């Protein structure tokens, strides 16, 4: 049997405020486990992807305005 997120949200809405806090605490602990078990990308991987994006940007049509000037202007 599957259950939708909407159904869970509706059911959670029927809990007392105290039990809603307990539910959030429980889910937070589960989420922390998932996050801690997911390896962060290494610096090498991140920079390799950055290099690919550099190449993609270099292949884009030449911009008609200076990006640095545009940035500075947007700060005024």
């Amino acid at each position, binding site marked *: 049997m599957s259950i939708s997120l909407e159904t869970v949200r509706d059911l959670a809405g029927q809990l007392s405020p105290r039990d809603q806090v307990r539910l959030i605490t429980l889910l937070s602990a589960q989420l922390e486990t998932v996050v801690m078990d997911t390896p*962060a*990308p*290494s*610096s090498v991987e*991140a*920079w390799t*992807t*950055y290099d690919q*994006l*550099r190449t*993609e*940007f*270099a292949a*884009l049509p*030449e*911009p008609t*305005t*200076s*990006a*640095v000037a*545009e*940035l*500075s202007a*947007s*700060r*005024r």
Partner: protein
Amino acid sequence: MFTIDTSVFVADLTPTESGHAESRALLDRLRADGTPLILPTLLLVELAGVIGRVHGDPERAGRIVANLSTNPQATFVALDAALALRAADLAAGHRLRGADAVYVGVAQQAGCPLITLDTEQLRRVAGVITARTPAAALSSLPHAPDP
């Protein structure tokens, strides 16, 4: 450790920018040295905005932001209440633009120089913190060891 302004990443990604070569050389050097980059989360917003406007490419803007935000060499500093108050003091006391004050606040808090190509930012923050162009920052680094 350095705080890098959005302008340096923008120039690195845009070969036609006059500061492109020095920005790329600096980022490559910092990457090779594993130098920590202390960046305000504001950088992600500015970078996405300027790429979206100038290159007209929101999809790549999103990818570059996702990439930088997960780079372990970069530490992103959020604009929380403490940093906002520090930046507000700096903005009022030194007549800085809002974004400049956030960058100065982050660099000051981390105790590191700010690297920027935004000439107005460079001029305004001089005297408050150490601020350099990428070329000046590169020349301040010790010579890289031979590979």
